[in-house]
């Protein structure tokens, strides 16, 4: 008798997914033997609009609309690229404030991902709890930048708003609360049956495969591949504020969750150092000129490495903006992980990747 396989689709609209993506799983009994993904549902054409519709000083706000979760990373990466082309320097205070908001963004994004993982494990109470605690971080973000999700905080030359002494105190207060909660989550994720044992050994990526498929972000760090762009760049003061790379060995869903929890703790530590050691100075420097030349900027978004290639020609319109988003380059690795897993695990594995399809399709 010949092999019989069944095709089961997941998506395009699915309760466990926030975004439209379609996976077609080829299943043999319960095992997945083939994956076909369709990620282009949210393609809008931002890359073209950046070069034809908007001038270079507005592009920073447009690219933030690629993704609501890592909006700040997108606008930062573009802004740094534009500043490279203009030959400009920002003040130390602006760099610190940028880093502060980036790390806050990472905290809330990781918390969203963890809560989603809980929801997919059927642990609704934990989902609600993490989402509720996430509001503490959202509150700080709103106080700093004026908006909850799309900040528009970073502009070419610096940042748009300063923080006051009372605000600094409020940030520290809220972060202390969050840190306490994160310690509790860590306990839950390590010891609770439905969150720890269930996830061990499921959806694993070996170190060999991580190298082969160029895995990035928490996916790679959970597999033991030492890559973090925060360690590989020099334009933000990560060395001074106590950045430590978080690693795990096993590469399964559990390891990815632990990497995220550790990173939240590290980010809280960094935010505290920033607020306590904020240098004096102006927050914005005036920059004149038009972008000329080409540059590549990489930055670590919550989901992994983000790359911007910007080419200017000396006029207000840019020549080319290439955006390589983290989920986009992880898709081959995702497909590899799904092979050999059970179909029932597919939503949980997918949630543990923390995919961002609006990033992917731009």
């Amino acid at each position, binding site marked *: 008798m010949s092999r019989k396989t069944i095709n089961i689709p997941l998506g395009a609209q699915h309760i466990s997914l926030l975004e439209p993506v379609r996976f077609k799983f080829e299943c043999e009994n319960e095992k997945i033997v083939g994956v076909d993904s369709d990620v282009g549902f949210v393609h809008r054409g931002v890359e073209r609009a950046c070069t034809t519709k908007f001038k270079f000083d507005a592009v920073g706000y447009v690219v933030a609309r690629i993704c609501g979760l890592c909006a700040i990373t997108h606008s930062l990466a573009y802004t740094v690229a534009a500043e490279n082309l203009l030959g400009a320097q920002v003040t130390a205070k602006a760099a610190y404030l940028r880093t502060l908001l980036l790390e806050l963004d990472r905290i809330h994004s990781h918390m969203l991902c963890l809560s989603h993982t809980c929801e997919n494990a059927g642990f609704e109470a934990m989902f609600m709890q993490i989402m509720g605690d996430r509001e503490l971080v959202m509150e700080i973000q709103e106080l700093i930048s004026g908006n909850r999700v799309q900040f528009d905080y970073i502009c070419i030359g610096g940042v748009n708003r300063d923080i006051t002494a009372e605000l600094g105190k409020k940030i520290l207060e809220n972060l202390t609360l969050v840190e306490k909660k994160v310690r509790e989550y860590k306990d839950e994720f390590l010891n609770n049956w439905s969150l720890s044992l269930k996830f061990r050994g499921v959806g694993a990526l070996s170190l060999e495969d991580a190298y082969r498929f160029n895995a*990035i972000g928490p996916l790679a760090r959970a597999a033991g591949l030492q890559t973090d762009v925060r360690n590989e760049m020099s334009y933000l003061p990560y060395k001074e504020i106590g950045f430590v790379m978080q690693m795990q060995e096993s590469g399964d869903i559990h390891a990815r969750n632990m990497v995220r929890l550790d990173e939240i703790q590290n980010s809280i530590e960094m935010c505290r150092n920033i607020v306590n050691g904020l240098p004096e100075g102006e927050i914005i420097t005036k920059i004149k000129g038009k972008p000329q030349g080409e540059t*590549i900027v990489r930055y670590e978004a919550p989901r992994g490495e983000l790359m911007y290639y910007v080419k200017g020609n000396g006029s207000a319109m840019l020549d080319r903006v*290439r955006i*390589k988003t983290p989920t986009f380059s992880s898709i081959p690795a995702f497909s590899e992980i799904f092979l050999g897993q059970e179909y029932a695990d597919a939503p949980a594995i997918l949630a543990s990747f923390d995919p961002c399809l609006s990033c992917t*399709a731009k």
Partner: protein
Amino acid sequence: MQKIQSSLEKIREEIEGFYDQKSWHFLTLNGVALSNEKLEVQWIFSKYATPDEVVVYYIEVPYDVEIPSIADIIPSAIISQRELVDMFGIAVEGSTKGLYLDEDSMQTPLKGCQI
């Protein structure tokens, strides 16, 4: 950023000789339209654990040639190759249209839009 020019025939061998998966990280495949007839295709690599070290291999080709695939050397390149096909309408060995646009779409959004 270090740029190395190559040619259509030699690019596959050069990348095969250069790429070592333990030390180099393949970022992406990028296309830049130079004019309505010419396209610059870039293969971008970065080094693990070294600050700001990026190497770019690039070739300049007209639109009617077929770009060789490097998916057997670097499996994760397959998705960027499909994007290149969609965006510029250029042929890449073994890649089909239909990642972002429809399979039968006539659009080539980024071809020659930069003046």
